[in-house]
């Protein structure tokens, strides 16, 4: 069984401060993992480690079959990260931003166009400079840039922040679709209600470590193959959650129907 990501006792530094102090995590393909935790717990650092942007000083990690510390250059094009900042160019239009992202990821113009439309940024909005868009629209634009890249692993830091109800639903739909197609999603979020239905698994972080990050061996062997069809609900998460429920200390398990 191939895990999307695997961290064992990962320690990472920001300057001289250990933002991750021994994190353990397993991630299956097609899973939507929600990471909760107080401010300062290390959620953003976890995402950056998975993206290959933050090297580890101790512990092991494997993301999409690559070592994020040693093979960062190979790993990074395969992941998409939505951080607190959107990574947008304020002076370019929405369309130009997404086109640049698509070209930089070598995924072609078509994916740029479709990404814009999928996030509801077609028409007049596409020609507006990114600096003039509202916060929610910028968030969606950043997501569009992410989508245009077609990554195998989505790493989202508070993606629902700033989005209204209609666009939250849009995002949830998009993520479910993406996960159904085999990509994994890791989402750091404070919002219980918004993510309750979406998540296939929830973990929490505190003090630079992850609680319940590991999957019991039974579930990892039970999920035989990564789901390739968009029709079925993600079966690995379902079996993972079923297997995980007898675990002591697991607060809640969400199943994506």
């Amino acid at each position: 069984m191939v895990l999307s990501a695997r961290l064992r006792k990962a320690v990472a530094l920001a300057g001289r401060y250990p933002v991750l102090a021994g994190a353990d995590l397993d991630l299956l393909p097609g899973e939507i993992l929600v990471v909760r935790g107080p401010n300062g717990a290390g959620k953003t650092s976890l995402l950056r480690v998975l993206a290959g942007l933050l090297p580890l000083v101790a512990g092991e990690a494997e993301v999409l079959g690559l070592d994020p510390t040693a093979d960062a250059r190979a790993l990074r094009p395969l992941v998409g990260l939505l951080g607190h900042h959107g990574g947008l160019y304020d002076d370019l239009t929405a369309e130009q931003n997404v086109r640049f992202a698509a070209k930089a990821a070598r995924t072609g113009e078509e994916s740029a166009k479709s990404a814009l439309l999928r996030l509801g940024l077609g028409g007049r909005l596409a020609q507006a400079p990114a600096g003039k868009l509202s916060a929610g629209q910028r968030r969606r634009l950043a997501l569009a840039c992410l989508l245009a890249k077609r990554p195998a692993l989505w790493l989202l830091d508070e993606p629902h922040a700033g989005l209204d109800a209609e666009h939250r639903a849009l995002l949830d739909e998009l993520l479910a679709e993406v996960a159904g197609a085999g990509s994994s999603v890791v989402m750091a979020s404070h919002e219980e209600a918004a993510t309750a239905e979406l998540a296939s698994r929830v973990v929490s972080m505190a003090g630079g470590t992850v609680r319940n990050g590991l999957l019991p061996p039974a579930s990892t062997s039970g999920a035989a193959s990564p789901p390739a069809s968009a029709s079925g609900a993600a079966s690995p998460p379902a079996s993972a959650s079923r297997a995980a429920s007898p675990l002591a200390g697991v607060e809640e398990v969400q199943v994506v129907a």
Partner: protein
Amino acid sequence: MWRDAALVAGKDLRIEGRAKVSLNQVGPFALVVLLLFGFAFDQDRPLLVQAAPGLFWVAVLFSGILAVQRSFSVESSDGAIDSLRLSRLEPAGIFLGKVAAVAAQLVVLEALLAVGVVVLFHSRLGGAGLLATSAALSTAGVAGAGVAYGALCIGLRARETLLPLLLAPVLAPVVLSATEAWRSALGLSSGDGWRWLALLGCFAAIYLAGGSVGFGALMEEA
């Protein structure tokens, strides 16, 4: 790599075209610098004519520092550096693209400043071949060193003050050589200006090559 460079250069120039910072801010600043030089020399005409090439290149140096800072503030304002790292763009390509964009802006500024020097300092232009080639090589050197050091400073606190401190002594020989070349081109000195081109070429080569190779590492540490 060249495709990536073209993409990044296009993006930077498109941003500049929209925001027009170089045109609206850096250009006038450079002209004001020339004016200040004029005041400082108390409008002493023969002296200004003699000093014009040096003053020109010092003004270009200042403008270059500003242009480089602008080039990188575009990236850091919304965390676009992370997006660049996560893309398939080759770091050397990103470097060359940024160098090309900064160099293009500098060329426009130099043309503007040349007009300013002619008007304000009553210089007479001549020796166009030497003027143009030395200007081209110096611009390449200034842009190359600028983008390399700019990437270095991008993640640091106090980067606005650190960049000029690092860049100015490094570019001092470029300014010196360019000045000498121009002085000989304008007939203000008796030396052979073409020899200075070799030195300028050296610097341009060092910084373009070194920057391309090292840009990946510099981007990482930002």
